């Protein structure tokens, strides 16, 4: 039987949706499941980790793991994978996962597949499906090793309702710090903002908004909807938006219920990050903008005129609901 180790995604003490999603998939393919949780002050998450569908919880809880550092995190994952005898090691999609997964694979002499959309097991044969060439094509990849380390794209698997595992905690000894790659500090952005990765609605702003005033206008729309507020690369390069607000191939990959692209042209690198959204709304003054090729609803118009009307109409609808 396959043994799946899921690397819990924890951000600021909160367990992210990728963890129950990956555990659900693991159970659906009939694998035995474990989870490894790494961080500082995270032991209290054990009931939630079991509830998400894991039957063993490997816990590395140490003050030294407060600031993310890929080396020590990889060491914990490798430790848990060895103890559990994992054949499949799955990460949710994040910058941290992308930094850690290849290290784990190298240390376990396993194959590594990033950004996978699906995985199948046929006896011992593992195969994955993943996009490549900026999402222009899909690849079917055959794994020739017994072990696979995989980073799964956001929204690839759904959490099953009503599953739960059992509590069985195994404490991991704290890893050595990586003295040759010392993390000095993490400059965090404004706290309290809604995380793009698990927002139900994401509103993103592009170069069409021009400047800070335009950004603030679009941000108002995001606030009204309690939506995550993202951006195209143009606004990050312009210095208006923080780097980790960027949606796209080089940034966050999001798959919300509703994605609003405001003043974004729809370059392939941007589409690679949001085309998995359930419903897409685009506002652009150029009727030929490629974003309209993927949008379920398109408004051809000047965002400075359209956004306030959007806000007003949404307010009216909400009042009626």
């Amino acid at each position, binding site marked *: 039987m396959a043994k799946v180790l899921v690397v819990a995604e924890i*951000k600021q003490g909160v367990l992210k949706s990728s963890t129950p999603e990956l555990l659900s998939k693991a159970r659906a393919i009939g694998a035995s499941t474990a989870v490894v949780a790494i961080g500082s002050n995270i032991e209290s998450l054990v009931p939630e980790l079991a509830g998400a569908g894991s039957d063993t919880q490997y816990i590395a809880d140490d003050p030294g793991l407060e600031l993310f*550092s890929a*080396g020590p995190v990889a060491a914990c994952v490798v430790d848990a994978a060895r103890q559990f005898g994992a054949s499949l090691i799955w990460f949710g999609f994040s*910058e*941290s996962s*992308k*930094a850690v997964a*290849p*290290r784990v694979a*190298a240390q376990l002499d396993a*194959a590594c*597949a*990033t*950004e996978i959309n699906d995985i199948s097991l046929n006896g011992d044969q593992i195969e994955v499906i993943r*996009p*490549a*060439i*900026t999402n*222009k*094509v*899909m*690849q079917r*990849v*055959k794994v*020739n*090793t017994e072990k696979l380390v995989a980073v799964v794209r956001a929204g690839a698997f759904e959490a099953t309702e009503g599953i739960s595992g059992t509590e069985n905690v195994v404490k991991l000894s704290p890893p050595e710090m990586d*003295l040759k*790659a*010392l*993390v*000095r*500090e*993490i*400059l965090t*952005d404004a706290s309290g903002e809604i995380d793009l990765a698990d927002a139900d609605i994401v509103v993103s702003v592009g170069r069409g908004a021009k400047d800070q005033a335009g950004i603030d206008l679009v941000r108002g729309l995001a606030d009204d909807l309690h939506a995550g507020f993202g951006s195209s*690369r143009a606004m*990050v*390069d312009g210095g208006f938006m923080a*780097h*980790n607000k960027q949606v796209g*191939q*080089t940034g966050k990959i999001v798959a919300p219920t509703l994605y609003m692209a405001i003043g974004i042209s729809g370059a*392939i690198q941007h589409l690679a990050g949001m*085309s998995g959204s*359930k*419903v*897409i*709304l685009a506002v652009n003054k150029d009727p030929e903008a490629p974003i*309209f090729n*993927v949008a*379920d*609803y*398109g408004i*051809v*118009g000047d965002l400075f005129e*359209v956004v306030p*009307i*959007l806000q007003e*109409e949404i307010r009216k*609808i909400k009042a009626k609901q």
Partner: protein
Amino acid sequence: MKILTTVKKVVDVELNMHVKDGALVEDGMQYVTNAWDENAVETASQLKENNGAETTLVSIGGGDNTDIIRRCYAMGIENGIHVDDPALEKADSSIYAKVLQKVYEAGDYDLVITGKQAQDTDSGQTGIILAEYLGLPCVSNVIALEVIDDQHIKVSRSGDTGTEIVELTLPAVISVDVSINEPRLPQMRGIMMAKKKKITEMDLAALGTSADEVGADAPKSEIIEFMASQSRQAGQKFEGDAAEITAKVVDLLANEAKVI
């Protein structure tokens, strides 16, 4: 400081891709330098200009890579190594990393700079796996770099909760994101000079290794099929009076799509 940068020749992603019988249709494809590698080259060139670094690039595979490598010379890189071998045709990230390990060990490098991923595979693994094989510290997704002294650099990494500031002891491996810099356009003079520079061509034997040693005869994973992407269909597009069409779309969001 001796720098090794990696440069991959990749298919031009801006062109349309076609799939036939499980394979990419090569006809009409064009090849360019991997975008992130241009940022790696720019980073190396700036370290040459500002800190007197010595710069070497290595490119693996791709057949005739002369144009790609010359372009990097014109951007400021001093030495170029091209490793190609029929055995590398199906190479995965770990095989590339093994070949790079051999190249690294033949030089005496202080810093390896790779692009954070290659546009043909979008895997983002090679540099990180290389660091593991070499036992070197590594930071991926780097968006800024500062030299502290001969043995230390400070890098900014774009992480999940913000910008991570990491002090690296050299030798080290970093992978860079496109936002680290704006790659320069080669100038006429540089292009002319680049034509005269030599490129060191090597196969695995010349590199002192073999298909077996780099794992090329037993790849850990292999692509068995390409498929067309399931592309989204364009939906309803509204033009006309802003107030009218916006109200219409909000109504559709609420009552048709039921997402607000």
